[in-house]
């Protein structure tokens, strides 16, 4: 049974690094792992995408181990505006599945 799980919530302070992990045991061989940020009542917004190893862009890094059964989104120095829900999106054999979402709360 395809399942994509994340921690329900995380707390952090401004300026800290935050790492959010997503577990996806049955990811399809050819599919990428994508992370999105969502604010209340808005559509998810793309953060980063990767297939394996490490990917970095101007806002985040994504670490994917060789077995690709999990991935970790790293936000280097969070600010108050990073308070949101973060989702991984993973492709399985016949469908796309969002993770359960991690609610990140950043405190001053």
């Amino acid at each position, binding site marked *: 049974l395809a399942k994509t799980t994340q921690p329900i919530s995380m707390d952090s302070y401004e300026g800290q690094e935050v790492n959010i992990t997503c577990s996806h045991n049955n990811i*399809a061989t*050819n*599919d990428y792992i994508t992370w999105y940020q969502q604010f209340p*009542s808005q*559509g*998810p917004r793309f953060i980063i995408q990767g297939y394996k190893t490490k990917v970095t862009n101007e806002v985040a890094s994504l670490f994917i181990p060789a077995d690709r059964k999990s991935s970790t989104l790293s936000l280097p120095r969070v600010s108050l505006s990073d308070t949101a829900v973060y989702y991984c999106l993973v492709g399985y054999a016949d*469908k*796309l599945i*969002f993770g*359960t979402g991690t609610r990140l709360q950043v405190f001053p």
Partner: protein
Amino acid sequence: AAGVIQSPRHLIKEKRETATLKCYPIPRHDTVYWYQQGPGQDPQFLISFYEKMQSDKGSIPDRFSAQQFSDYHSELNMSSLELGDSALYFCASSPLDRGPYNEQFFGPGTRLTVL
């Protein structure tokens, strides 16, 4: 830059009525995805289309149907509405189907309320 357009933004219907949600993808994006997001829940994949053909099917109820037209816009048709259908419905578009670099760009969503 052009974004995904969804209409209407808000819709109120009564039980057993029908509803049609529309999605206009980003120009030159030929893949469209539909998601349903209930209050406090993660988005649930419903269905996707690539080049006007159904690509993948998720947890879309039999009461719902969707299609992608020749201009690549898509419509989600919902019949015999139930209270549990109240949710945010997101459409996303992508320049590619499943596989590499299929970043999905999400629209603002349609909030459907069934009374």
